[in-house]
């Protein structure tokens, strides 16, 4: 009985990370609601975080886990700015459908 949980499943965990990242890509490409596109980007960041944690475990280094913190901070900043942008766009155009937002002029 191994005491290192999940360690034998390492390639499968990376595979799960690939699948989740792909689902995020498909979400960005298929959905037209700007908020759901943002959520799909969050899904991609989470998949990358899973790969970081798995590699940190396999190399027995803490740096991968520290990097996940930086990814989380950047994601939080991105969400704050992105949602502020979405609210501003909704105020001027009354829509957040990305097909309707096709002009640089406000």
């Amino acid at each position: 009985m191994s005491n290192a949980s999940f360690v034998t499943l390492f390639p499968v965990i990376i595979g799960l990370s690939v699948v989740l990242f792909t689902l995020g890509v498909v979400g960005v490409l298929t959905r037209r609601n700007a908020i759901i596109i943002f959520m799909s980007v969050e899904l991609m960041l989470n998949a990358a975080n899973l790969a970081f944690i798995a590699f940190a475990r396999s190399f027995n280094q803490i740096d991968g886990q520290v990097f996940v913190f930086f990814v989380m901070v950047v994601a939080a900043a991105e969400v704050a700015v992105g949602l502020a942008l979405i609210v501003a766009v909704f105020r001027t155009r009354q829509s957040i459908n990305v097909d309707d937002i096709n002009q640089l002029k406000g």
Partner: protein
Amino acid sequence: MLNLETIVFAILALIAVAAAVLMITSRNAVHSALFLVVVMSSLAVFFLGLWAPFVAMVQVAVYAGAIMVLFLFVIMLLGAEKIGARMGRSWQLPVAIGMGVVVLGLGVFMLLNTAPIEVLDRPAADIVMGSAEAIGAALYSEWLFPFEAISILLLVAMIGAVVMTGHAGKKKSA
């Protein structure tokens, strides 16, 4: 080799993938947000299993908590549950799915064609565990400069969000 870890992994992976599929297909944006919370929570359990308990707690508190509450707040503030539920142009969906398959194929190809990584099954005492102490020590020694730089990034993001929403409000009332 059907031990407890494999069973837990299979169940969690199924939950995560199913919730992710439901997230990108559900018509209602609130349902999408709640399915994303399910994905993030199951990933937090993965982090626990990979010896990263502190990151798992931060994942639940910051991602599944704060960030998703912000998403839900904006969805309900704008009343944007149903916007963009249908594709405007019908040719986009097959192209998007084709490109998704290409990305998946690329990932699987790279996974199968890299040298297998030697994962040693160390005794538990030798494993570097991501406790709060270990991560704090790494952050304040080796990663001190990125840590300070990212605090400025957070400050800039906060100011940017306030400026953008405040400016739009003034423009409308003027």
